[in-house]
Structures are given as structure tokens and as C-alpha cells.
């Protein structure tokens, strides 16, 4: 980064709010604050928007992940401690990714197209047409910068590589070939029961007792067969853990919440007339979302500076209150509030003389207590997993791939028509919750081995681990043997698509911190952004308790109209 041109000074030097990092939560808060007429400076040390929510080219992807994979003390601030009015604390970054393993089995083919990829760092992710993020985009006006396409279908997978269509709507149940007539009837009746309950229809109220009991008990009570239960639990309400084994289930879904999820799913189908199902995906990748909010913020007057590392935190010497930040350019910028992305921590200097209360308030390396991580995997293929379909979701319920599999695994295939890869290629995103890196790796490998042919590469793991340490330029493993053996073969082996490139990594979970200095949450293990948006709204209200989060404007108000997003069919 030393080769970058010198930083021009930022003017003005005082803001209401400084936001560091352009991940989705930071971007939403920046846009919301600007909408509330705050002056905002939005900084990002990276040359792109999105931080941990970005979509990156094949060259940027490894370097970003590598940079976030190890802790680093930031380079000592240029004018260290010269300003006597402040206590200066240097930022350091904490590792958010671990066990990074990137393999390129076809560097020749991929490198020439490297810029045509938009690889989601926080994949797999989709939107339900009726979820909070869509509402937020419509409300904030960010939707005008985005374009979406439908996800064609959802499948349940098994260890044989079979993909079973999930009949998630009336039309899908009708069309489904794998369900028996009785099962169709049972499933549709259950959907109707839920709809009737939500609509407050006479005689179809689900009892309070049932609402507070586990959803799986309710499904059992309704007499639904195991297959249908799987559909509902894992592919529609998207639970993470096995619901009938108390020993391994850490998150038992209540009927009330299950029904809320079903309702959300159901409301999503048909919300936009040209969306086929419940799920949509943004053209050019998920990173577009952060960027759309940034653009929204910029329109409202937010000042953006990318490629701008922040070195230190400036605190009032007397009371230890936050004052501002020192940029890598050496400039000090002041603000009333600060929001930083989760990669930053502030290590306390040894023998610190900081006032006691402050010590507890600083975002130390406090990660989420339960130490659950998200295992993420990305593969690039030249053939779709389903010959006639390019964009779809696959869910592997717990224990469906191997007996020790505790959590649901979700896989999203996105094709070139969503502009995330060159024509005739596909990007596969895999994620699952895991307790540690070994478990995470096992999960990712089992999915890949079930669905893909992974070329034999000579100890790619260790190699790439070494490589990734030095992957400054973004160059990754180049294994001549692997490549030649790959090109000699047909594109698929045993009828499975071959992986051209893969990246496996474990991501830490942080839920953000709303304290003296606010930090934002990392992408969670869910498919949709609902929880993240809740956390973001909460964060906004913490720093601006008196401001409305994207108030309705008179111009955008169309009575009764749902608003629309641009959806390509």
C-alpha cells in the first residue's frame, strides 16, 4: 500500500459520524445517518466497497481474505503521540478468517477471466422477496441501484448426490413429481393451516400452547411424514440444527417463529409478479447491496474515502471520551460518533493509565461467546449441478451427508446470467455453522466430494496455506500437474462437474458491539440478512436514539403500493 499516491487531506475535519468499513451494516448506518441529516465520513482501507460483505474478483478475493486472516498491529501511527490533547490508541486487526485454503486447478483458464468474477465473501446469501432487507431497500431508495433475478428452485440434497425438489408453494406442490398424493394433500393443508392462522380465520387458530412449543413437535402433532418435515424445517424455515435430538440441537425453533418464517416465505412467493419463487439474488453479486447503500448515502451527502487505512483512535486525555481517529495519511479527523467494522480492535497499551471504566468499554478481542464459526466454501465449475438450471439453492439437513454432521449445510449455485462469472461458468457457495476449523473443513469437503469432482492436487492444502501467507499479489497455487491432468480429462468425471477453483475458509462470528465505540456484526450463518438488519437498526438507534431509521418520505409514499424492485426474468 506504500505505492499508493499520497492522501489528499480531507476537508472538513469534523463530522457527526465516522464509519470505518463499507460492509453492509456500516453502509446502512451511513445511509440512515445521512438521511437523518448527519454529516458522515465513510472510510474504507480497501480499494473496494463492501468489506466482509463484498463481491470480489478472483484476484482481489484471495488477497482480501488473506489480509483478514491474521492479526496485525497496524503500522505505527505516523505522528505518534505528538498531539498532547489526546490519548492515542493504535488500532490493530484481529483475524476473522482462518484455515484459508484456496486452490486453483485451472489457472490458465481462470486467470484470463479473473476480473469477470464477482465472488461473494459472505456467500451463500439470497433474499426472500418479502424479507426485511427488501423492505429496507425500497424504503431507503437503495433498490434503485440494484437489479435482481429469481433463484429457480430449492432442493434437499442427500449423500448420493441426489437433489430433491422442495415443493414450497401451491404451484410447486401441484407440479412436484416426488410427492405422493397424500403427501401433497398433507403439505398443502399444513400451509393452509398456517395461512389461515395468520389471517385470523375462524376455527384455524393454532393454540397458544402449540405456538410456544417446539415447531418440530407441532409438525409431528400435525402428523406430517419425515420427508415433509424436512422440507419445512430445513428448506423453508432454514433451521441450522437437528430439531429432534436435544443433545445436539442448540437452537430449537419455536412454533411461533417457525410460522413466522413460513409466513415470510409464503409472502415472498408472488410478491413481485416476475419473480418465480420466494428467493432472489442481485445481479453482480451480494457486494452490490453495500454499494447501493453507499451510493444512497453519497446522494444524501456522505463523504467517501476508500483506500484509507485508519491507524489510531483519539481519546480525550481527561475523561477518556472518544474524539476522533487518525488516518494513515496522518490527518486527524474528529467526530461525535464512530462506527468501526469488526476487524478492528484496540489493544490496551501495557501499563495503561486509562480510566478504569474505559477499559471495559473498548472493543477488545471479544468475539461471540459460544465460539461458533461459519464454514464457507466457494467453488467454480464449468457445468451446472443440475443440467437444466443455473441458479438454485440446495440444503443438506443435519446428518444427511455424514453421521456427525450437526448443522444444516446450504449451497447456492449462481450462474453467469447473474454476472458473477464468465459465461458458461458457475459459482457454488457453501456454508454451515461449525464449532471448530476441523469440523468446518470436514463439512465443506463432504459437500464438495458429494457433488463435485475435485482434481487430485498434490498437497494443495499445505501448499496453498503457504501460498496464502504470501499471497500479496493475489496469485494462488499453480500446480502444473493438477492443471494438466485436469485439461486432459473431460469437464466432468463420473457425471459430476469438476471444480476449477475452490476457496475454503472459516469465518468468525461477531454480533457487533454497541458501547462507547460501536462495532458492526460480521455476516452471520444465515441465508438472509434479517438478523443483521435487526442488529443494524438497533445499532443506529443506540447512537441516534432520537432519529428515525429511514423515515418515510412523502415522495416515495405510494399508498397501498408495495413498491417495486427491478427484477429480470
Amino acid at each position, binding site marked *: 500500500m506504500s505505492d499508493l499516491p499520497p492522501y489528499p487531506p480531507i476537508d472538513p475535519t469534523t463530522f457527526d459520524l465516522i464509519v470505518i468499513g463499507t460492509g453492509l451494516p456500516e453502509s446502512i448506518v451511513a445511509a440512515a445517518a445521512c438521511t437523518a441529516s448527519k454529516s458522515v465520513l465513510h472510510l474504507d482501507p480497501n480499494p473496494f466497497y463492501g468489506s466482509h460483505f463484498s463481491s470480489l474478483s478472483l484476484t482481489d478475493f484471495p488477497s482480501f481474505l488473506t489480509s483478514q486472516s491474521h492479526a496485525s498491529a497496524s503500522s505505527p501511527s505516523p505522528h505518534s503521540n505528538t498531539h498532547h490533547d489526546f490519548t492515542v490508541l493504535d488500532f490493530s486487526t484481529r483475524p476473522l478468517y482462518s484455515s484459508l485454503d484456496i486452490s486453483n486447478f485451472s489457472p490458465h483458464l481462470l486467470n484470463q477471466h479473473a476480473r469477470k468474477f464477482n465472488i461473494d465473501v459472505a456467500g451463500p446469501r439470497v433474499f426472500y422477496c418479502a424479507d426485511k432487507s427488501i423492505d429496507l431497500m425500497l424504503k431507503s431508495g437503495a433498490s434503485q441501484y440494484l437489479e435482481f433475478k429469481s433463484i429457480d428452485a430449492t432442493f434437499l440434497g442427500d449423500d448420493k448426490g441426489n437433489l430433491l425438489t422442495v415443493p414450497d408453494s*401451491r*404451484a410447486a*406442490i*401441484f*407440479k412436484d413429481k416426488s410427492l405422493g*398424493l*397424500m403427501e*401433497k*394433500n*398433507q403439505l*398443502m*393443508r399444513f400451509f*393452509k393451516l398456517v395461512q389461515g392462522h395468520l389471517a385470523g380465520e375462524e376455527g384455524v387458530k393454532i393454540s397458544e400452547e402449540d405456538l410456544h412449543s417446539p415447531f418440530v413437535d407441532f409438525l409431528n402433532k400435525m402428523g406430517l411424514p419425515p420427508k415433509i418435515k424436512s422440507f419445512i424445517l430445513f428448506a423453508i424455515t432454514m433451521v441450522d440444527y437437528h430439531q429432534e435430538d436435544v443433545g445436539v440441537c442448540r437452537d430449537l425453533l419455536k412454533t411461533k417463529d417457525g410460522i413466522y418464517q413460513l409466513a415470510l416465505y409464503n409472502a415472498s412467493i408472488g410478491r413481485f409478479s416476475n419473480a418465480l419463487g420466494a428467493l432472489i439474488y442481485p445481479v453482480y453479486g451480494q457486494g452490490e447491496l453495500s454499494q447501493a447503500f453507499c451510493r444512497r448515502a453519497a446522494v444524501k451527502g456522505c463523504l467517501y474515502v476508500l483506500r484509507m487505512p485508519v491507524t489510531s483512535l483519539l481519546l480525550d486525555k481527561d475523561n477518556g471520551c472518544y474524539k476522533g481517529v487518525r488516518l494513515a495519511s496522518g490527518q486527524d479527523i474528529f467526530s461525535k460518533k464512530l462506527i468501526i467494522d469488526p476487524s478492528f480492535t484496540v489493544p490496551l497499551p501495557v501499563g495503561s493509565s486509562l480510566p478504569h471504566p474505559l477499559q471495559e468499554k473498548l472493543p477488545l478481542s471479544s468475539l461471540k461467546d459460544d465460539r461458533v464459526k461459519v464454514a464457507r466454501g466457494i467453488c467454480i465449475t464449468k457445468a451446472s449441478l443440475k443440467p437444466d438450471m443455473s441458479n438454485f439453492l440446495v440444503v443438506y439437513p443435519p446428518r444427511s451427508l455424514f453421521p456427525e454432521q450437526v448443522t444444516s449445510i446450504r449451497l447456492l449455485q449462481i450462474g453467469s446470467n447473474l454476472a458473477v462469472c464468465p459465461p458458461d461458468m458457475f459459482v457454488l457457495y457453501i456454508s454451515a455453522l461449525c464449532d471448530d476449523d476441523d469440523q468446518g473443513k470436514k463439512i465443506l469437503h463432504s459437500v464438495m466430494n458429494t457433488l463435485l469432482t475435485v482434481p487430485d492436487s498434490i498437497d494443495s492444502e499445505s501448499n496453498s496455506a503457504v501460498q496464502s501467507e504470501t499471497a500479496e499479489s493475489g496469485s494462488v497455487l499453480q500446480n502444473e500437474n493438477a492443471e494438466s491432468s485436469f485439461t486432459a480429462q473431460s469437464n466432468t468425471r463420473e457425471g459430476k462437474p469438476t471444480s476449477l477453483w475452490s476457496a475454503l475458509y472459516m469465518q468468525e462470528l461477531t454480533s457487533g458491539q454497541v458501547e462507547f465505540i460501536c462495532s458492526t456484526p460480521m455476516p452471520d450463518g444465515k441465508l438472509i440478512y434479517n438478523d443483521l438488519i435487526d442488529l443494524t437498526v438497533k445499532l443506529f438507534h443506540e447512537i441516534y436514539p432520537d432519529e428515525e431509521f429511514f423515515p418515510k418520505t412523502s415522495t416515495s409514499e405510494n399508498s397501498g403500493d408495495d413498491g417495486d424492485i427491478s427484477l429480470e426474468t
Partner: protein
Amino acid sequence: MHGRPRKAPKPEDEAASAAKAQKLRALQTQFFSYHHNKIYTKEAVELSAKLLEINPESYTAWNYRKLAVEHHLSQPECDPDSAKSILDDELRVVESALRQNFKSYGAWHHRKWVISKGHSSIDNELRLLDKFQKADSRNFHAWNYRRFVAESMNRSEQDELKYTEDMIYTNFSNYSAWHNRSVLLSTLLEKKAEGFLSKEKVLPEEYEFIHQAIFTDPDDQSGWFYHLWLLDQTVKADSPLLISSWPAHGSDVQLVDRCHNDSAFSPFTTLHSDSGSFPVVLYFNQPVEGVSSSTVTVESEFNKSEDLVWNPLSVSNSQAAKVWVTHLKFPTSELHCPVEVSVGHSKGITSTRGFQYSFSSVFSFKVHVQPTKKDSSQGSVAESILWREENFKAYGTQSEESIPILSFDQLSIRNDPEPTVSDWRVEALSKEIECFRELLSLMDCKIGKLTLARLLMAYDSMSLSCTNKLDHSDEVLELYSDLMKLDPSHHQCYKDGHSLVLLKQVTSSRESLLKYCSKYTDSVPLTICSPICLRLNNLSLSRVGAFEKLLWVQMLDLSHNELQSIEGLEALQLLSSLSLRNNKLRSFTALDPLRKLKSLRVLDISYNHIGEHSIDTTRYLCASPLSHLVGSEWNKDETVIGDVALINYWDAFLIFKELNLKQLDIMGSAIADEKFKSVLVKIMPTLKQLDGERLG
């Protein structure tokens, strides 16, 4: 498009519509002046376009445009290019009118008219339709127009079937799509197109398809409608068949004009005839046309086949009927004469759907005439029927009495079943039965029960030819009883179903039928023979049926039921005494079938609801002086009888004028006042007894 609640208009809406009306009125005045003066200038035609854009329902404006188009096309300077541009203009006007209201009949019709001129590209029409059908997938105007377009451009039925399927997959609650599917399949089956050679192949797949819809959402009606169509296709035999006759095959018809109290004669075949003639009745499985002396031959010593006139027995006076009748005449001297009737040996009998009667059948019987000496002085005195319980003796209770009933099986004609053809039908039905039993085991579903009832009955009547048993009738009766409780608003419909099944059950075997047969014995013995009376009283019937087994009935007691209609009773040509006492008949028009019963002498319609209801909906279904059917029969001189204007009683007049009743009971109905009775006496000079009072 569907299920959107209507909102009350806001004040500004009302103002807007007032302004629109104002504008419309001005336009309309101007338009009519152009129209009446036959002005077809550019300006005038544009004005009509403007009018139609606001109000696509203006039929006159559409017709005006047609005239204008014809006018311009007939101009000498009109070449194909300008014709095309004229017609393209029309299409544009229609399109904008449809955008205003895509359910406008006038607009769609105008478009058809323009397209059939043949100057415009039809491919464009499909694109337009796709747009409209996307906006409202059920819009039947668009579907109608689609059929027109598909036909005009010779689009294959297979392609259209695929389109229909796609629409169904998008949303299977689409009556129009299912309907179109049934239309297309009918055409393909008729054409015997490739892959659509036989119902045997196509229908099971369709059942499979519709099950997906029905099971997914049994509350959705569209699937059930299609299922009903499939069931009909499965059950309905294509070619018409003769299913029963009177006299029955192998029977001995005893023609006696007085009773021998001789029980040697079968009650099913003995007939008193004072006219020297008796009817021959043919009963088909569906309405047929073309029964005549050339298609039916009757070989007998005394009657020449070609002299016989066959009459359809249909209330609606159409030329198609299930039942046909002719009358054979015999001398009154003692004789024994064989008669042979053959049907279908020459072509000409066709079903209403155009299928030929292809299964020739022959039946023969013997006629015995046994004249007896008349004892007129005694006979006429006591010749009245008293429908009293003590006058009837059930056969079952008189075990000592042997009843020489003709073999019951002879009541219906056995058509040798074509095993290969009907096998798949039976198989399809039993699969359906199994399927819906399963559905009902999962949930309570009214339409499911009704369908199961229909399926079981269809199955029984299809396998009847093999087993001669109604295995499921008890189950069906129970289903209908259930439905009456579950769905009171359609009580009458289920009741009708229940009644018909009950009658099928009653007539299903000799034993069951005999339970309902009684011997009528008069208080004055030996003056009248003891006829067999079929007593179907107190069965809470709301409809009557199973007539094919009852053609022999001469005396019928339907009293104390809930009949509102006696549809089909016209088939009982031998009927001479009929009691409809204590039913729910509401009008004389409901008695219309009686007009065809020339042998009816004794009628009891007392204690019905005739005259109670000021509005009689059946009236409009029947022949009346206002319809051409009766207009010619209505004699202008007959408009007044005595001091009573006949016009007030035209319905009674039309029924009774044609009957030769001797005895009538009509008391207990609102209409039966003294004035009305006096009218009846005048209409029917033959009447001897009215409400139990002998007439001088």
C-alpha cells in the same frame, strides 16, 4: 383480477365519473349524427375511436366502424396496402379499448371480425394474447379468442395443449385452462391424432394429472370440474344402446279388456286395452335421433312395419329422446301372434353427439288377445281407484300366492359387453374409487364424498352387466345422507342423488322389486281385476328414475314423497293410475311429463303445493302459450270457458286438455278452489270423478 374487494367510491371518483359521463354524452351525440348520416370521413371515424376508448362497451360504435371499414374497402381506389392499413388501424383501436376493459365483448368480437378479413398478421395476435393471459390468466374472453386464433393459424392442438399445461402449472386454479384442455382433448381424440388414439390411453394420464390438483388443494373447484368431465368421458358410452323395451324380450303380452281374475298372467305383461292397441317402447341409454319405420323393423302378422310411427318421448319436443314409442294395433278377436322387433340393422339411429347405433338388437314377444264378454252395467259403477292402505296387499305377506313374474332379467336387454373396451373403464373407475377413499380418510371433504358417490354408482352400473348387483348402493346412500347433513345449502341436490340411487336399488333385483309391489283389491270384488301396484310411497323421494326397469308399470303410487318434479315419468307408457298425493309439486308445469301418458285414467295430485308459490321457476322451462311450441295448439276460441278467463289457468289447461282422465283428486292444493274445479270439469269431458265426487 380475482378476489379483490370492491371499494366504495371516493367523492373525487364520483366527480371524475360525472365528468367522464359529460364528455361521453357529447361524444355520443356527435357520433350518432355521423352514424345516422353515414359519414365515414377520417374525422368521423376518429371520433368513434375516441368514444370506444372511453367506453369499449358501445356496440353501436363497433358496428359503425365495421360499416366504415366496409365502406372504405369497397372504394375503387382501395388497394391491398391501404386495406391492410385500414384494418391495422382497427386492431389498434381494439387494443386500446381492451386495455381499457379487457372483458369487453364488443371489442373482442370486433377483433375477430377484423382478423377474419384476412389482411392482418395473425402471429401478432398470439403475442397480444400472451400479454392479456398473463395479466388475467382466467379471462375467458382471451381464451375464447385464443381458440379462434389457434384455429385461424392452424396451430396444432398439441401445441395448444402444451400451452394449456403451462398455464395450469403456473396456477392450477384456472377453469379456463382446464376447460380448454377438455376441448382440445376431445378434438384430438375425435381426430385420433397420434398419441391420442383412444380414451383408454389418454384418460388414465389425465386422471393422474388432475389428482395432483385435487389432492394438493381439494378446496379448489376447478380441478373437480375437470374430474367430472373425465368421469363423464369414462362412463359415457359413445355409441347408443338399447337397454330395455316393453314388451320385454320373450314375454307374452296378454291383451284383455276385462279382468280375468286369473293369476296365471304375469303382472309385468298383462295389459288391459280398450283401444285394441298397445304401445311398444324402446328405451336407449342416451337420447337418440332417427328412430323410424326405416331404422326399426317390426314383424308381425297384423302390423306393417312401414306404417308404424315412432314418437320421441321428450318433454322438450326435441327430435332426440331416450325413449321412443309406437303403437301396435290388434283385432279384438282371440289370437296368438308372435312379434319381432329389430333395432339398428340399418343405419340412421344416432346419438346427439353423432355416434351411430352400431349394435343391432332383436327382441320378440307373443301377443295373446282374449276378449271377454263385457259386463258394462257393473263395471262402470265401481270403476274408481281408492288409494287406501287397506286396498293394497303386499306380495311379500302372501306367501301362499305364487306370483308368476316374468323372469326379472328380461326386464332389461342384455348387451353382450365388449370386454376389451369396458375393461379399462372399470379399472379406471376402481382406481379412482380407491384414490378418493384415501382422500376421505385424510380429511372431510364434501365434494370428495359426492365424487366418491358418483364413482361408486358409475362403477356399479358398469359392472352391473356382469354381476347384476349393486354392491355399493348402501354406501352411496350413506354418502348422500352424510352430505345432506354436512351441506344443507345443497340439500336438494343430494336428495335427488339419494332418491335416484334408492330407486336403482329398489329395481336392482326381483326380490327387492317385489317388496314394493302390492296387489290392489277393490272393496267390490271381481268388478275390476287386481292390478299390480308399484308402491314407492313414503320413501322421501325427491326425484324418480330407474324407468328402464319400470316400463311395465300400470299403477304407481308415489304418494307421501318429496317430489318436486316427475321428469322422465313419460317413459311409463302403460301407466293408467298414478298417485302423487302429498308431494311437493309446485306447479302444473311440473306435471308436464303426464301429457305424454295417453293411458292415464286415474290421477291423484292432492295435497301438493300447486298455487302456493307466486313465482314458479319451472314455468319458464316448459312449453307455454308464449312459445312457438304451443302457440299453434292454442285455440283462440278456447280462451274463455264459462265466465273464467282461461288465460289464468293456461298451465293447467295445457296439461289436462291432453289427458283422458276419468278420476282426478286435486284437493289440498292452494289452487283447488271451486272456480278452478269447474274449469277442470269443462276441460276434461271424460272426467267421471273429481275429489271423490261423482260427476253427473
